[in-house]
């Protein structure tokens, strides 16, 4: 799995919201950081050393990120909105050549082989040489005065440069502009397309994303968490509806200062986003819609954050520094994303039909086309469906053993929320690898429920006889004789047939004693007392060996009693209610120990009888004896 690891810090001590931009540097290992409106630093991010740095005079303000042009072998930046400074990497910035423009410049873009690009504030783009030559001329505005640029980028294609720009009006109307520049003629081809968004949503962040086919898409994260992927080829002069290009929904809260960047053909990174009320940097797989990795962010992210990816590291301005998270994009496969529990949600909600199809396959016994990821995805969509609860389908999933342990932690709370005792019982019965946490969660739920809730669970007749036989017999005896109730058997247990079967199913499951004891400590004391009393009854009537599946034998009951006593020892000491039942248990165990010791002493006599030998006379060997010693 491509996973970021420990973060490194750059530009420690910079002011909040003072980072203007991060751009590519002299080579693959260097980056250009422009910050505090006066400073430009070139860092080797691999060796983590500063290569060069320049500072402007206080009267000048840098208004666009500095870029390095390999074509010109120079650094360029925009000062005071309409002056471009160009200087060599070994010279001082005061010696930079300055070009003053009539109109303000929005940003400069650098390309690998071609000239830098100038994006004017009015939306027009120009090659640097042409822009400089025509700097005294007025260019016709591309965007209206009501619009302002919210995001822009430029990439070099085979024969031309493509500039992409998104504008916004005060009424949150968005428009995409794509301009293509062909060198040396500098012919500009422009297309623009208004964006149609759902009411109340707006664009939070954009980035360019290169697909596996070497084509470029515009990734657009909307404020409601929808992630759109609009191919640049789709941008014509017609309106674009974002619903047509919705890719996934990121299942987290999108912050106002969120920034996204593409980290490869199949991944996109976003930060900051809230997952479980924690600010994180999340990396999602675009193909499978799964969360590949998340990194909790301990420091607050800058208001105007800018997530930048250089192919090896992700850079994010946080607090008073820029954090770099190593991240190497790798080809994603289905196997690499299997097991991811948190993924993007399919907004089209196509799961219900798929579920029906799957169930029909299950009924037909055709399991060849099933994959665990598919089942997982369908199950998740079924659980998230608030309108209808596909109980029969889920029951079929459970009985077919298709629910994996990775999804059980979501599945069980949902069933508890629905108070579906029968489905829970079936899940505990059929599903393997139930964690101790889940087991105690279910046990707590069982103990909290009334007996009537278990009416659906019916034990087979022979099982009832095994489980509840002694209790039922005792009850019949009490009723016939008109005697008082047996003090050791609470009245509720006599109606516990369904509940007892469910609890017995849990008691007979496999567990890890260390983990289970920690989980049992979370149970409330009143429920612990009920369980203790039930275990006491089971101790008195449990079979020596397990006679039926789902029925705990006496060893398992003893282990549960021991675990419960260990888990709530201090509570039992302090709580007087528990003393009575504990004393009964002590008395019963003492009797049992005595009985078993006597039985153990019978074993050698029985062995002798079996071998038809004469019973030996008791021979007392004291401290003194005479015996034959052979020294060989």
């Amino acid at each position, binding site marked *: 799995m491509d996973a970021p690891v420990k973060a490194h810090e750059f530009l420690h001590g910079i002011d909040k919201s003072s980072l203007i931009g991060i751009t590519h540097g002299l080579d693959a290992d260097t980056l250009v950081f422009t910050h505090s409106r006066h400073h430009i630093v070139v860092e080797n991010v691999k060796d983590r050393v500063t290569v060069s740095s320049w500072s402007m005079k206080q009267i000048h303000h840098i208004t666009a990120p500095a870029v390095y042009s390999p074509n010109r072998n120079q650094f360029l930046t925009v000062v005071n909105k309409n002056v471009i400074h160009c200087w060599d990497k070994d010279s001082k910035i005061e010696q930079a050549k300055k070009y003053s423009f009539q109109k303000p410049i929005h940003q400069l873009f650098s390309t690998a082989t071609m000239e830098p690009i100038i994006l004017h504030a009015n939306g027009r783009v120009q090659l640097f040489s042409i822009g400089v030559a025509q700097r005294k001329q007025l260019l016709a505005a591309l965007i209206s005065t009501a619009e302002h640029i919210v995001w822009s980028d430029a990439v070099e294609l085979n024969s031309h440069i493509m500039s992409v720009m998104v504008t916004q009006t005060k009424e949150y109307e968005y428009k995409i502009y794509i301009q293509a520049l062909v060198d040396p003629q500098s012919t500009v081809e422009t297309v623009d397309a208004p964006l149609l968004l759902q009411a109340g949503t707006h664009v939070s962040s954009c980035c360019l994303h290169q697909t596996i086919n070497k084509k470029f898409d515009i990734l657009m994260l909307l404020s409601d968490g929808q992630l759109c992927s609009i191919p640049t080829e789709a941008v014509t002069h017609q309106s674009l509806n974002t619903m047509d290009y919705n890719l996934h929904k990121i299942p987290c809260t999108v912050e106002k200062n969120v920034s996204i960047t593409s980290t490869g053909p199949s991944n996109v990174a976003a930060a900051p986003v809230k997952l479980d009320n924690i600010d994180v940097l999340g990396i999602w797989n675009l193909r499978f819609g799964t969360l590949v990795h998340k990194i909790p962010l301990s420091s607050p992210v800058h208001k105007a954050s800018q997530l930048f990816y250089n192919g090896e590291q992700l850079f994010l301005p946080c607090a008073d520094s820029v954090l770099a998270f190593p991240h190497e994009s790798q080809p994603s496969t289905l196997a690499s994303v299997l097991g991811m529990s948190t993924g993007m949600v399919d907004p089209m909600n196509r799961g219900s039909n798929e579920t029906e199809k799957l169930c029909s396959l299950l009924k037909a016994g055709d399991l060849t086309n099933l994959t665990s990821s598919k089942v997982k995805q369908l199950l998740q969509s079924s659980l998230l469906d608030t309108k209808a609860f596909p109980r029969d389908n889920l029951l079929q999933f459970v009985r077919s053993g298709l629910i994996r342990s990775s999804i059980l932690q979501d599945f069980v709370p949902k069933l508890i929320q629905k108070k579906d005792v029968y489905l829970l019982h079936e899940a505990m019965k059929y599903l393997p690898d139930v964690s101790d946490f889940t087991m105690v969660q279910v046990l707590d739920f069982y103990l909290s429920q009334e007996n009537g809730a278990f009416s659906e669970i019916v034990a087979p007749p022979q099982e009832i006889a095994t489980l509840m036989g002694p209790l039922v017999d005792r009850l019949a005896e009490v009723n016939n004789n008109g005697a008082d109730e047996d003090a050791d058997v609470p009245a509720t247990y006599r109606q516990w047939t369904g509940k007892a079967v469910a609890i017995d199913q849990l008691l007979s499951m496999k567990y890890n*004693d*260390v983990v289970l*004891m920690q989980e049992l400590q979370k149970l409330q004391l009143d429920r612990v007392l009920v369980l203790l009393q039930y275990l006491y009854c089971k101790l008195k009537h449990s079979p020596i060996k397990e006679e039926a599946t789902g029925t705990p034998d006496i060893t398992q009951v*003893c*282990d549960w009693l*021991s*675990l419960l006593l*260990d888990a709530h020892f201090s509570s039992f000491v302090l709580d007087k209610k528990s003393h009575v039942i504990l004393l009964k248990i002590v008395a019963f165990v003492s009797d049992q120990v005595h009985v078993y010791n006597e039985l153990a002493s019978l074993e050698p006599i029985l062995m002798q009888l079996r071998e038809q030998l004469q019973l030996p006379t008791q*021979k007392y*060997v*004291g*401290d*003194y*004896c*005479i*015996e*034959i*010693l*052979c*020294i*060989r």
Partner: protein
Amino acid sequence: MGDFTIVAGDSTGKVSFFNGIHGNLLQVFQANKADVLTLCLNEEENKLFCGGVEPGISQFEKVIAGPGNDSFHRDYQKWVPSLPRLLHTHDVKSLCMAGEFLVSGGVDTNLGLSKYPPKTYITLPHIPKNSVHLAEKAACLMLQYADYLEVWKLGDTAVELEMGVEGGDGEMLPLTKGAKKLLQLKTRNDERVICSAISRDARWLAYSHTSAIHLYQLSLDEEKPLSVHRVKYLPPGVQPAHHLCFAGSDRLLVATETGDVQVLEVDSVKPKLLHNFDGCQEAVSHIRASNCGRYAAVSNFSRTVIVYDIIEFKKVCAMPQFPQQVAALCFHPRDLELLVVYADNSVVEYSIAEKGYTSWSRRYAKMRHQMEPAEHVGTTLNVMYHPSDEKHSQLILHGDKRVRCIDKTEVQSRKRGGALHVCDRIHYLVHVAPSAPDWLVIVERTPQSIAVTLPPTLAVKKFGT
């Protein structure tokens, strides 16, 4: 340590390494589950051993990752946990190095010797020496405890084993008469008994504590009740003893603290101090008297063995010194020969008359390593001639775990296979002595009997307990 690293063990079972120069903590290891009681460092200071309130001994080794051993590269030195050693059953309270061996001792009373590599574990049980004495003629056994003595009459059986008719090994014979305790003699003011002795006919009993010797006359006539008469007036020159031994019927040999050997003529009224053989200021380790009562062999911790004539009060001879300590010695029942076993289990037979080793002894010295089994045979506690062998050609040696019988004639005829016989089913042997032809008295202290007297081991919490 030499580099001023300070190692500390605490009551939580942690072993901490501190830089003594800067006072900072370098490393911490959870060595034990409970208190650390002892730490030991080897001579090279690259191995540390740790013992405490649990049976295991933890080991830490210094690993040097850097190129040098100077102060600059000291930061590259790390201590890492190494192979633990398990020799004991209870707490380990003391550790020390003896050469390449780690010597450990603790609550289980055993002395453990271990080294690695190769993995070698030797456990030496604590068996008290010279605490049992047999009066062969009277079939009485005297047991020496810390502050009292007990005299027991041995039991009997009706089964007579004929020579050449063997019963099964370990077969119990029915007792016609059980052992009977005749006497328990407590010291005054709980004085600690240093040594004791009983004469072969059980008429005389003597013991010594730190300040004086006490002599008693016993009357064991079965028709009369037991009578014990204390001899009150001992000669003034008699000193407290380290070893006591009766020679013949009326002489008591007293080995004093200074290595002197005093010859006392016992008498119920007025014992006499007949002679005092000056020692060499070394404590006596063994003292034995010949069956005829004329000679006494004394060995001391300077590894010398001297034979005295206690009738004419002269030194007869001194045996050549061996590099090892004497482990056991005994006189030949008939001839004037002395059998000595050394700490390395080598056996020599010395002719007092010829003042040289016997021919058997020389031959056995050459064959011994071929005869002895390869494994560790333990130390020898006592040696004796076979009581039923009229030719006195069989030797019985015993350690704490095995009885060995060496057939001298087999050695003489160079029959390697049949010269050595071993019995190792009795643990731990405190005393083995012949009481009559074909009879051996063996006093055993079983490991179980030791274990029940020990305090409980560290309780380990298990779930459900």
